[in-house]
């Protein structure tokens, strides 16, 4: 195996192992997601028609907020203990190492949200056809959330009150993903063709995958300077 692949595999393994040994890190965003979505039936009453109407938006907004919650641990620990310097001085493109870290972040926060979303969809009385659409839209959308969030996390690294700043920086950028993600689910409920929504989400993901790791790497170099 070439050294680059070995380094990437090792870094991915490292992030997953550290998170597994600190299981609260994985559970916090997931539990937050479940609780926020569960508050709505409690607050609005169990009327299926109302819940069905608001479900796509509620679940998607909760997913955005849950991702936000986990962003600060993406680079902060590595920055504090000096690992990030070592990554910047590694003989490999920093953008690829950053992409590896983002992939690990998604596997630990985005993927669990996707997996638990059908359960919440049932709770919100979504029709069966919309459940698959919801999971699929989250599967396409959550990686974009992690990629965009990484730029914000890198820019605010080492700043006081960085957590709040990340939200202000990143949440406006999340709006297109929210619109098309929630829109696709709402479209299925209303019986509209949602192919365009998915094409756009796929295009966003392709664009984010190609550009944002480089932007994040550049932001990290500035933060380390």
């Amino acid at each position: 195996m070439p050294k680059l692949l070995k380094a990437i595999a090792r870094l991915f393994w490292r992030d997953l192992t550290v998170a597994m040994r600190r299981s609260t890190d994985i559970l916090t965003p997931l539990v937050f997601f479940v609780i926020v979505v569960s508050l709505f039936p409690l607050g609005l009453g169990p009327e299926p028609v109302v819940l069905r109407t608001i479900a796509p938006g509620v679940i998607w907004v909760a997913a955005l907020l849950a991702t936000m919650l986990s962003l600060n641990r993406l680079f902060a620990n590595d920055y504090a203990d000096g690992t990030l310097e070592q990554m910047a001085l590694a003989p490999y493109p920093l953008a690829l190492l950053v992409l590896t870290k983002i992939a690990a972040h998604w596997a630990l926060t985005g993927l669990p949200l996707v997996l638990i979303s059908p359960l919440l969809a049932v709770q919100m009385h979504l029709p069966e056809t919309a459940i698959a659409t919801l999971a699929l839209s989250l599967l396409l959308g959550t990686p974009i959330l992690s990629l965009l969030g990484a730029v914000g996390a890198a820019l605010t690294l080492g700043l006081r009150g960085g957590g709040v700043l990340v939200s202000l920086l990143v949440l406006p950028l999340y709006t297109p993903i929210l619109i098309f993600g929630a829109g696709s689910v709402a479209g299925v409920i209303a019986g509209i063709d949602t192919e365009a929504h998915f094409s756009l989400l796929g295009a966003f993901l392709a664009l984010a995958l190609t550009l944002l790791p480089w932007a994040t790497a550049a932001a990290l170099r500035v933060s380390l300077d």
Partner: protein
Amino acid sequence: MLEAVDLECVRGDRPLFSHLSFSLEPGELLHVTGANGSGKTTLLRTLCGLTRAHAGEVRWHGTAIHKLGDDFHAQLAYVGHGNGIQGDLTPAENLSVAVSLSGSADIAQIGKTLERLGLAAYHHFPAKILSQGQKRRLALARLVAEHKPLWILDEPLSGLDVDSASLMTTILMEHLAQGGLIIITSHQDINVETKTTLHIRIN
């Protein structure tokens, strides 16, 4: 091999030093001294390429390091103030991640290196239970396992006990004997017998 040409470094608005030039050949050690806040760490980070110099440049084999990029990084081992240790991983896991990140995947050496630095007994414990000095030793273990020619070390002896400090001196001498280059900041005297030791004092 490593040349600094007319370096000028600025931290915020404050100029630290200017017109700093030196050149370091294989087997030579450069000992940087100076008061706290005089710019030793900034100089070292500039030599690594982490911080951009305000003016002047750093060259490796005659080529500016920002042009060499990853080719220069492949020759360089840097130990800064941070130890780069993840507390939830064991010392062996930490070292194997660092070694594969550095591109010199000599995984077989890890057990031997930990033993040499007196960390073998902590093989299965998370690194967070290590003391400050032991964490420092683990950070320095990276140097031994990686086999890079250029070592840039920021206060490597801080927190080390007398025995570990003398072990570290031995390791430094071995590296110089093999034709390595070392740039080091330290408030302690470093008793390395070598053909050349350069001293830079930053005021």
